[in-house]
């Protein structure tokens, strides 16, 4: 029994390494692995992400590995909950705010943070959510949840936070 967890860990590590290498967002999990699934046009803008309510759905914040936009298995239950919330509140519009840690350069981090938010959006659409109610914003490295250069600050900062637009 002592060795089982370690064995599991190495399998997970290998899976995680592979997933990062070919950069498939987990939208590919929804059967049809064509590139079209990545084209989910964004809705016209509504509300202002600056004034969105990020408190109500705080526990549904999704965290990412370094330089990755893959939605890891451990994060998926949060998105199941979020999809459920959206189906119970079909008129609620939300914005998904993507963020990176401070490593890397400004433009790539902007794009990576936006990609994290679109990856979450695609995943939610895959779960049946109405894409027309899901906007995105990428803040790059400039709206950190934790200040500093520690590993734990980096971990806190690589995230996509759902906010209710009002």
């Amino acid at each position: 029994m002592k060795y089982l967890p370690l064995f599991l860990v190495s399998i997970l590590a290998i899976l995680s390494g592979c997933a990062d290498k070919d950069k498939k967002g987990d939208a590919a999990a929804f059967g049809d692995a064509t590139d079209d699934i990545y084209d989910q046009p964004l809705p016209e803008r509504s509300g202002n992400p600056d004034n969105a309510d990020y408190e109500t759905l705080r526990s549904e914040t999704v965290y990412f590995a370094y330089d990755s936009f893959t939605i890891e298995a451990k994060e998926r239950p949060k998105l199941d909950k979020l999809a459920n919330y959206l189906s119970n509140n079909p008129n609620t519009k939300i914005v998904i705010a993507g963020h990176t840690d401070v490593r890397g350069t400004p433009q790539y981090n902007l794009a990576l943070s936006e990609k994290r938010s679109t990856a979450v959006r695609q995943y939610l659409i895959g779960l049946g959510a109405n894409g027309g109610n899901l906007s995105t914003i990428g803040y790059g490295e400039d709206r950190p949840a934790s200040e500093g250069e520690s590993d734990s600050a980096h971990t806190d900062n690589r995230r996509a936070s759902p906010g209710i637009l009002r």
Partner: protein
Amino acid sequence: MRLLTILLLLPLTLHSQTAAPVIVIEQTRKIDVAVQPIGGSEGPAATKVLTDDLNRSGVCRVVPADAAVFVLSGSITPSGLSGRAVPKSGGAAVVDKTFAGDSRRATHLFADAVVEALTGTPGFASSRMTFASASGSKKTKVKEIYVSDIDGANARQLTQDKSLGYGPKFSTDASKVVYSSDKSGYRDTYVIDLGSKKRTCVAQFPGQNTGAAFSPDGSTLALTLSKDGNPELYTMAATGGSPTRLTRTRGVEASPSWSPDGAQVVYVSDERGSPSLYILPATGGEPERLNTESSYTTEPDWSPDGKLIAYSISSGGGQIGVYDISAKKARIVSRGSGLESPSWTRNSRHLVASQNGHLVVLDTLTGETTKVPNNLSNNTEPNTSR
């Protein structure tokens, strides 16, 4: 659970290590010049400006007159500066001209003319730069856009957006600056006309509108849009309008920079793992990956002579690389760490870059950096006028 997280991250960490290319630092011989005190009431200040410009040029070394090969002299006139550079061995002046503008501007033009006379390539002392400067922290952090001379003087705040401004870039004629800001709540792309100070929002599609760069003729912008659901590269008219999509990948595309003939764009994509550099025809087509031998390479900038691409290497702690397009070879041109966001000056030799929140001029032949002084904090993403 903590241990699990660490082990999960381990393969990613190993994957991101760099196989660094050999660092080639060439020692270049500098030409010894002497600067005689410039006449006129603004002469002493101009003398210092000229001396700094020449030292920063990478071409000259300012020495006492008895050790000099060329001697520079000048005087401030009501309309500018009248400057001369003569060989100490005798013979005709290599520069003998009146330069127009305020004393500072005219002095920069004199320095550039001296460098051009000695090397055949114009100096960059009269160039300007635009950059972002941050203040505040966390939720109150704002980044405004500034312009200044390339030596840091005449810094002027262009925006008062009280939001996050990113990636300012000049048009080729330096009459406009394009940048992105989330002042509307979403990230839009704006063009500022530096003459009229008028600002126009040119891209406000759903999602992100960022990383815009003017084509060499100024008619077109290349930029990253996420309106179709994923950050991809597009081109569009610089005055706004309907975008043309250039890329279609599962990953992130960012940071386009045009070839000087406007035919191609170099950009960043992480389609195959960590971000690397690709070249694509500006009208769309098959991307070609550049083998820089480094991982996590971003922020490419195509040199004005068309031969080189400078870029940031994040995996080595923040260094600058240069890729030679015809030789297909890359080299690291910086020393130290914390460097990013390179932008070529007009001589295709020196770059401006940011280093730990300061701006520097980096000589890609020697690796020497010269700090650009200013009173602003957290300076990022400098871009030079050419």
